[in-house]
């Protein structure tokens, strides 16, 4: 769930049409239109959630965040879809359904799983539906990709975009020889695997 209380506004006098804003927008809500000297970034206010990625990366200070007259909420109710399927999807991704995966919005794995079950097939669609990945824009891409993969979906990064590049390893993918090699150096992979397993076992057992 995300409270949207801001939106991005472009200053046409400062915008050079460099397209950096396009490349970093997690909801694909800003696009450069026009040709040559007429190029200008345009914000889609229907999908902009005011995350500020464009503001923060514009080297020309051409984008600012403005306060909405009336805030709105974007969310997916995980209880509005088959809860068993939500749970199955989360467990397949090795995430507890109630586990927080976006520390800025407090979005839990179950909300993203529900969005996928409702048809979302890319991180961008999920961000538009739930608001996940629209706070810091940094820490939550992997659980989103893990949940999509668990649903059998392999989204492609946006061509030319920098939104995201690919799925990365989890603790379950670390080769045994690597675990063995570094366990005496303070990397407690076996013990952390046991912690995650304990967490997931509470779901299988029907909660605490």
């Amino acid at each position, binding site marked *: 769930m995300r409270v949207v209380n801001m939106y991005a506004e472009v200053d046409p006098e400062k915008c050079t049409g460099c397209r950096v804003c396009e490349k970093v927008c997690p909801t694909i809500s800003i696009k450069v239109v026009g040709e040559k000297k007429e190029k200008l970034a345009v914000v889609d206010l229907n999908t902009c959630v005011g995350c500020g990625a464009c503001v923060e990366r514009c080297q020309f200070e051409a984008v600012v965040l403005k306060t909405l007259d009336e805030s709105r909420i974007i969310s997916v109710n995980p209880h509005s879809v088959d809860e068993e399927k939500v749970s199955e999807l989360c467990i397949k991704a090795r995430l507890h359904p109630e586990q927080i995966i976006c520390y800025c919005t407090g979005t839990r794995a179950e909300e993203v799983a529900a969005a996928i079950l409702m048809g979302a097939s890319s991180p961008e669609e999920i961000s538009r539906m739930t608001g996940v990945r*629209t*706070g810091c824009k*940094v820490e*939550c891409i992997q659980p989103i990709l893990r949940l999509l993969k668990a649903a059998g979906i392999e989204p492609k990064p946006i061509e030319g975009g920098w939104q995201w590049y690919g799925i990365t390893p989890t603790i379950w993918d670390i080769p045994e020889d690597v675990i063995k090699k570094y366990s005496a150096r303070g990397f407690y992979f076996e013990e952390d695997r046991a912690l995650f397993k304990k967490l997931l076992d509470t779901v299988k057992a029907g909660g605490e």
Partner: protein
Amino acid sequence: MITRNIKFNQPVKPLPPKPSRYGPDPEYIKTRGCDLENIVSVNVRELFPDIPENIYPSEKGIKAVRDATVAALEKVDMSMIKPGDSVNVLGSHHGFTILGGEPYAEMLKTIKDVIMEKTGTENIRLRVGVGLRFRESDEYIKRFGLDEYFNKRAIGVAPIDEGIPIETEIGTLYGIKRCYDADWIVHAHNSDVREIHFHRHVDRAVKPFGMSYARIETRSTYHQNLGPRGANFVARAIFNSEFVQKKWTFATFLKPTPAGIASVDADNDLFALDERLSIDNFRYYGKILTLLSHIDECIAVLDFQAPIPYVFSAGMIFANFSAASIDVFDLDYPLPGYTWYTEAFYGEGDRPLIPDIPPVNPAIKAMVINYAWGGYPSVFWAKMIPTIVVGEWQAEVFRRDPQNVEFMKHAVVADDLPTAIEFAMKIADTDKIIIFDGAPGAINVSESLAEELVEKAPDVDREVEQKLLPKWCRQRGIKLEGYAGAEAH
């Protein structure tokens, strides 16, 4: 309570507020925590006399940092860099938060000068990484004139900038392309424990390869995929990759203690440097954090130009203090009271999903935010600790912050700091106050808390030296015996 014969000092004035797009206008910050009644300062060397002498602040001024950097770099091999080669000096925003940032800026400038002198190349660039405030490094580059110093070749880089895949022994991870767009890289960082709740002081010196120089995919792997004690392995995996090793030259670290800057260390061997700084950090920061973790009850006043987790007291950041319901150095504990894995494992209604989750440091009975930035997801603290925000200007920082949209739902606003403290004392039922204001070399606290710290420090000193330090080293495979000590480096 019996106290040693220490006369408490007047509170140490913190640095004045700095203008930043992430914080309130400094004009609003009229009253500081140290201006409150009954606040005194405790010099950290009076608590732990073995903390090494400062090179900065000292009577030698900032030149001491330059001299220490030059001396440290004398033993470093730069022969791989040829005239005309391009070199990226990789820095991080963290260094600029230490003692106002000037020591770190001076170290960066000196590294550039020494590389030029020793190798003959002039193509030296500065790339300064950030965390979640993507323009923070640009502010420091401007403030310290680094763009001019690096001949218009200094830029801030962010984790959402263009990436580059890096093949590692655990699979593909991603770095920031502009960090690696040179023939050679130099790793220029700071050694304080800082986010020990995240890295658990396993490969501390390597961390920026998985953070400041890394893309979102890598950072998300760190905080979501690898677990609370294995997270920092992404940094080692990237550092050990063929891609990075082909560009690797040496590391230079500013070495603070809780009292100030003790030295500068440099080495071609990053892991050797890591072992040295680990022992020093366990000894000095370990004692301070262990002491702070022994506080029974307090009100924490946040009053520094940084987001909530990064405000300082005696060199420790608030996140460490809030995590200190367990010994965060001890790897037998899977989860500290605060880390993102801990936060993740609170279910609906803030119910812990497993019993292994320690609470946020229960000694913190209330949190008063007099001055702090946004730009870091902080709702967790407001939900876990009764929170009072001083002034609408400070509340507005959180309301307008995409990372803290709901923060003020869990906090109340007081018109001024004395009113906030008065209210905090009522709800916390304590007069013990600790101020996170970055005061150099000292902790600003209420007299009641000063007495408690002084009373407990000798036992903490013994506990760390005799029991904890050997254990922390043993857990990480670090050999303590034969280490010459901080001042030898």
